[in-house]
Structure formats: C-alpha cells, structure tokens
C-alpha cells in the first residue's frame, strides 16, 4: 500500500485537505462533549506547527465555523490538542497571573514503535511493516481490555499516529478529570517492561501473579508463535538467539529450575512479555497539559493521516496523497452540477461539498469509526442526564 510521498506537495495538498476533507462537524462534536460543561470547546488549547517549523501554542476557537475558516487559512502542518483551561487559551496573557490553569484533559497513551527497537528485527526507527505492526495489535488488545475492565472506562478512541505508533484517547468524564497523580498511577499499573539500555532483563515476575498480568499474558501467547518465531524469526540467527539466551536464568540447565533468583520459575513468561508487551511513555500520560497529536491531523513526514482505528480491523494504513488523487478523478463529471447548486447558499454548499468529498475517499470509513465512537458517548451522556433528572424528579 506504499505510494511515493513527497513532503514538497504539502503546501498544495494541505489546503485541499482542510477545505474539503477534514471532518469538522464530527471534530467539533467530539471536543464539545455535548455542551454539558460551559465553554469546554472554547477553553481548549490547540497548538499548530506551521510551514518552516513555526510552532504556535495557545490557539483556541469559539465556534465550529471559526475553526473551519481558520484552519484552511493557517494551513497547519501538524495539529496538537492540549488541555481544557480555566480561560480561553488565546487570552492566557491577559489573565491574572497564576489563575490560568489546565483543568481537564483526556487520559492519553502513546505507543511508539521505536521503543521496541531492541526486540524487533524487521525494521528500526520510524519504519514499520506488517511484521512489526502486530506489536501494535498486541498493545491495543492488552491496554483496551485493561482500561475497560480494570479501570471501568468506556469511551476509548484508538488513533494511528501517522508514522510509527498508536495513541489512545480515553474520553470518559472521569478520565478527563483525573489528577496528575492518578494518571501516573494508571500508567505505572499498565507498565511491565522497565529499564533502559543498561538493563538486560526488563521484565521481572514474582508470586503472586496479578490477574492483570495473566490477562496480558493470554493476549501475548495468542500472537507469540506467529509474531516472534515466524515473522521476527528471533531464533533465526546466532545474534538474536544470544539475545534470548541472555534473558534465561544461569542455572537453566539444572533440572528442575531452581528459585535461585527472584521468580526464576517464570522466565518463559518474562521473555514473551519482554518481546511483546506494550511499552508506554509515562510522561505522555501524566501531564494534564501535555499536548498530543490530534486525530485527523496529517503527519508531515509521511503524508499519512492520524485516523481512528476500528478495533475489528487492525491492519490498514492511509496516505494523504492517495485521498487527494482519488478526489481529482470524479471531479470533472459533477463539477457543473455542483457549481449551480453552490449559487444558492455559500455555507450549505461548502458543507455539502465536504460531505461528498470525503465520502468519495478511503477517509470515509475512518470517519465512520469516529462517528460510532461519538454516538456511543452521546448515548451515554443522555443516559446520565436521564439518571440525574430521575433523581431530581424532573418530568
């Protein structure tokens, strides 16, 4: 699915993307969160990376309309989403010092393929391929289960980062209100692979094995044979075999395996986890004001769009250029018809054009995934309001 991408085409393609493809109404619907909290969208920080690497923070918008007008004008190469603040971020300089505070933000996780470089042989750095993409599949399955079943979160948006990993946006009310300490605690609970360059054995298990670890192991075990033995071929060369052997207890040859080191009896599980278990950056998850790449933002180095991932299908990627190319083809036919209708109403025309445009591209199915996610949140909010009004005996 790789097509040649040239970053030089960004200045031409991006405006088209923002004018005709970016799903503004869904985006606004998401960040507004049903309008339950006053000014929730207005107080949200966005940051843009513009042409020539100019970085601007504390961007904020008052309406969907403003967003739709500004983005094609500013043509951001990258869009990041930050926290919902106590005041409009664009006015943070005029607010009394000390009172401008980050109040809420989604709980986020960032899984980056480069963090696995010590255990994958097919690619390194920013490259990814179908062989190592399985790692993302494993990460998503493990974390999604834990966030839902252990922590009780319901509204998770998994997004392809555009280059070499995935992000998870946990959008529940409770998640958005979490403190720094709580975010750090969740991230630590989910961390099993610890240590940097100088640590050889990065996973240490001892009795009793927590149910969370058992759940995670059953996911890893499902994929391990195909992923590690076949695709990554970890036993295929002396070098990689040595790496595996380095993780074994010294007295492996004496039978039965003694407990001479802590939890020595779980070395097989430890090895599987070290090769496959998700590696999180706790710092990304900790900060309430941390800025993370926005869904539907373009990755300037790859031309790929950060699209929501349908958990039922974890294997496709998309190129920005691809979408725009698809777009050019049908244009000619419908051009006349469109122009006539456009005379009637400028805004409606723009809206109609946009809906039609992305639906003609492979972006459509990703917007559908996003729609489903938004629907679920809306239903849940309605349920909450009914519960509340029942309690207050409103009829």
């Amino acid at each position, binding site marked *: 699915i790789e097509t040649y991408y040239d970053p030089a085409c960004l200045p031409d393609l991006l405006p088209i993307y923002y004018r005709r493809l970016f799903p503004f109404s869904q985006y606004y619907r998401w960040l507004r969160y049903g309008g339950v909290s006053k000014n929730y969208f207005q107080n949200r920080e966005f940051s843009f990376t513009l042409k020539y690497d100019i970085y601007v923070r504390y961007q904020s918008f008052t309406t969907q309309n403003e967003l739709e007008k500004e983005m094609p004008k500013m043509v951001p190469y990258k869009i990041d989403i930050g926290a919902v603040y106590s005041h409009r971020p664009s006015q943070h300089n005029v607010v009394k010092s000390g009172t401008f505070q980050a109040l809420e933000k989604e709980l986020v996780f960032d899984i980056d393929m480069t963090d696995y470089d010590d255990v994958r042989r097919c690619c390194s750095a920013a490259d990814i391929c179908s062989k190592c993409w399985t790692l993302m599949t494993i990460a998503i399955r493990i974390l999604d289960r834990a966030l839902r079943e*252990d*922590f*009780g979160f319901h509204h998770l948006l998994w997004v392809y980062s555009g280059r070499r990993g995935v992000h998870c946006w946990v959008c529940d009310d409770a998640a958005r209100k979490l403190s720094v300490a*709580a975010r750090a605690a969740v991230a630590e*609970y989910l961390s099993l692979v610890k240590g940097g360059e100088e640590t050889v054995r990065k996973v240490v298990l001892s009795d009793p094995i927590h149910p969370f670890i058992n759940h995670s192991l059953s996911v890893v075990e499902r994929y391990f044979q195909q992923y590690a033995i076949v695709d990554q071929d970890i036993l295929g060369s002396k070098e990689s075999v040595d790496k595996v052997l380095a993780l074994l207890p010294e007295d492996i040859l004496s039978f039965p395996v003694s407990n001479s080191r802590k939890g020595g009896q779980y070395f097989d599980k430890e090895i599987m986890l070290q090769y496959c278990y998700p590696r999180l950056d706790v710092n990304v998850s900790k900060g309430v004001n941390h800025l993370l790449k926005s869904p539907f933002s373009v990755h300037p180095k790859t031309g790929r769009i950060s699209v929501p991932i349908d958990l039922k299908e974890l294997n496709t990627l998309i190129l920005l250029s691809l979408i725009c190319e698809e777009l050019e083809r049908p244009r000619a036919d419908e051009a006349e018809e469109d122009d006539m209708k456009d005379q009637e109403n400028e805004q409606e025309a723009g809206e109609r054009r946009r809906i039609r445009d992305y639906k003609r591209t492979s972006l459509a199915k990703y917007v559908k995934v996003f729609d489903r996610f938004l629907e679920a949140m809306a239903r849940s909010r309605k349920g909450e309001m009914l519960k509340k009004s029942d309690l207050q005996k409103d009829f």
Partner: protein
Amino acid sequence: MQFLGRRKKLIGNFQNDLYDQCLQFYGQPPLENISLTEFETFAVERLKLLKTVENVGVSCGKSSEQYTKKLDAEISSLNFPHRGGISEYEKRRKDHISHFILRLAYCQTEDLRRWFIQQEMDLFRYRFNCLHSKHKTDFLHKNNLKYETVSAEEKKNLKDKLIASSYGLSGTKVEEHDVYKVPFQDALDLVRTRKVYLLAGNAYIPHHEIVTIVLNDFRTRLSKALAMTARSLPAVQSDERLQPLLSHLSHAYVGQDYSIQKNIGKISLEQIDALSGKSFPLCMRHLHKALRENHHLRHGGRMQYGLFLKGIGLTLEQALQFWRSEFVKGKVDADKFDKAYAYSVRHMFGKEGKRTDYTPYSCMKVILSNPPSQGDYHGCPFRHSDPELLKQKLQNYKVSPSGINQILELVKGMHYQLACQKYFELTHNVEDAGFSLNHPNQYFTESQKLLNGGRDIKKEVDMSQRSQENPASLWSLKMELDRQGISAK
C-alpha cells in the same frame, strides 16, 4: 469506663465528644483558651515527638519491633495519647491542640509542609495500626469514611483474584474479614504498584490494607488544610505574642543550645587543625579547610563557623587572634581586619550592638536557612553539596566505599542529619553513634567524649555518686537531662 462517664457529666460540652476517641483526624480546630505557656509547651513536645518519628523511621524499619518500642516509649514519656488507655482526656486534648499549633508553624513553605505532613502521616499510621480491629471500624464510622464493603457473594466469586492481587491475603482472611470497594482514584498508592485487584474502576481493599486508604484521605485533608492555614497566617503572625514563638518553632531545635560553654579556654588555637579532622562535623571541617586555603570566608561562613568555635570553648581573644592571623595571610591587612572584621567577631560574642549573645547554629538552622551560593562554603554539605562532589570529598577523607553509599542513600532520602551521624559513626569507627544528632557542637562534644573515653567515664562515676547523695535534687536531675541532650527550660 465509669471514670470517663463521670467526666462526661462534669464537663458536658461538645468537646468531650471529640476526645472520646484515641485517634482523630484533626478536622475541627480547638476552640478553648489556653495560656501562652501551654501553647509553647504543647508545641515543643509535639515537635519532639515528630522528630523522634522521623529518626526512628529511618534508623529502624517502620514495622520492626524496635520501631514500636521506641515510639511507644516516646509517646508515653511525652504524655501523648497511647493505645486508648484510661484517663486520656488531657493527653488527647494536648494531641489536638499541639497539632493545630504546629500547623501554624509548618504551613509556610513547601519544605516545611512536606516534612510536617510526612511525620504526621507516619505517626497517624502507627497509631491507627495499634488500634483493635473493632476500634478501626469505629474510627471509620465516626469520621464518616464511608468505604463500601463487598458482599459475601462477591467475595466468594472474586476470592482467587483477590488473593492473587494483594500481599499477605489468604482465603480465610477474605472470608472472615471485610473487603472494601473504593474508586481506584482513592487508592492510588496501591494501584501504582499493582498491589490491589481492580474491577470496573474500583479497587478491592482487604481490611488490613485499609490504613493506606485512610492515610491517603489524611494526607489530602492535611494538605488542603495547610494551604488554607498559610493564607490566614498573616493575621496570626500580627499577634506579637505568637509571632516569635511560631518562627522559633519552625526552625526549632529542641535540645541544648550550647550558649553556655563548659570548656571555655580549654582549647588552644594550635589544636584546631587536628580537631577539625577528628571531631568537627563535615560542615565545619569544610569551612575550616576553606578558611585555611583561601584565608577568607564570607559572612555566612564566618557566622556559622565563628559561632561554632565559640561553642567549643574559644574565648573572644582567641577568636580574634584566630581570624586575624588567617585573614592577614590573605588580602586583608591587620588594620583593615581591626576596622571591618574584628567588629563582627566581637558582635558574635555579644560585645557589640545589641549585645545579644548569639548561639551557635543548630543543624536545622544550617540546613533550612541561608542556602550557600557560588563562593560560599557554609550550609550543610549533605544538604547543599552536589552528591558527586560530596562523594569525592568523603573519598578524600578516607571514608569506605560502602560507607559512602550508605551516606548517599540517606542524603537521597533527605535525612541530612542522619547522614552526618553516619559520617560520625564511620570516622569514629563505631556502630552506633549513641546520640541523635541535632547540633554541630553536639557532634564535637560527643566526638571528644568518645576519643577521650577515660576522662568521661570518671566524670560519670562522679555524677552518679552525687545523685545518690541527693537523689531528688534538681541539680542532679538537670545533669541527667543535659546528658541526654534535652534542655529542661
């Protein structure tokens, strides 16, 4: 119980309800009037208790027998409530009032708040764990800590998972004792370390771990309360009677102040170089070395070192000679010394200006006030030196590598005085210093005692003979207290 009942009738105000429990959450401030003497005494005694909590917590494990013994002893001797004994009303009242007074003193800076919260939490944890299971439950109810208990059926279903998640939990324990269900946000310490079972956003806490949850609550409340106290502090500080007491407390040193030198004139200037290597604490050794090398010290260093020298027994004349001879070797000529620096030396001895006889700085004062900047040599090396530099210095002074590691560990845990105590133990080749380090001059005295062993034993024999002659004499009692380093002002 009858005794308390009668008291209830006698006193009969709502305060009594506050004091019918051994342990409290300090939710409501005391509303009575107390004398200034009681104000100060209560505060100082609680401070002593908290310092013991800190010292004992680092030197013994927090769940060890030694910890229990030492803390029990200190709580009893300072008259604080203890394991719900009888006639505890006065002790509980003191507990209540002293806590709130210390809030005033310790709310002002981040460092002070952190220290206070840490010690109060450790004390609370200790006292809570001493309660009987039933009293623990009573405490939870009394303080409206509504932790939901898990039904017997749910417990049965989750038994294996619970056992696999919580340390020290057996099947019988799950069946016999309550398991609590709290939102995971209220059990972050257990979540972070994955020491608890999570399901649908709830943490399942076995009874014996409930203290962690309660502590979390305690910390949150105290933290908020301190922030609020800090805001209303200006009003309190404007009261002239309280202001000196409060500022004294937060830098409080509750021991001998070495203002009265016992060994005046017993030290000669020639001995100082040798003494600096043998009996000076690291901060003073450092200052002395810097003075010898640079023939100069800035004001902060002159104060800290100069007062220390006064404390070990230097006379004013000796001090003047000492400083002049050193400064003159540098860029200062004798005239300039007499004009500029001699004045400040005499000032230290109370012979100028206000004529206050300044007291040598305690460790607390050295650690907390006036941090050194570039070109300064004062302060506490354990607190103010970069760990790498500290390590090098200790290596130069021939401290063993394992000893250096122990010291660095203590420094990492911010236990600076204990690190210095460890330095004492290593340089004097003893396992236990035998005292709790609070003051540089104390370090010197103890060191001299150890090195001149014989003479002191004889002194002690004399003392015990004397006290046998007059067992109840105030003089012998004071000697005993002095030996323990506790001032009986």
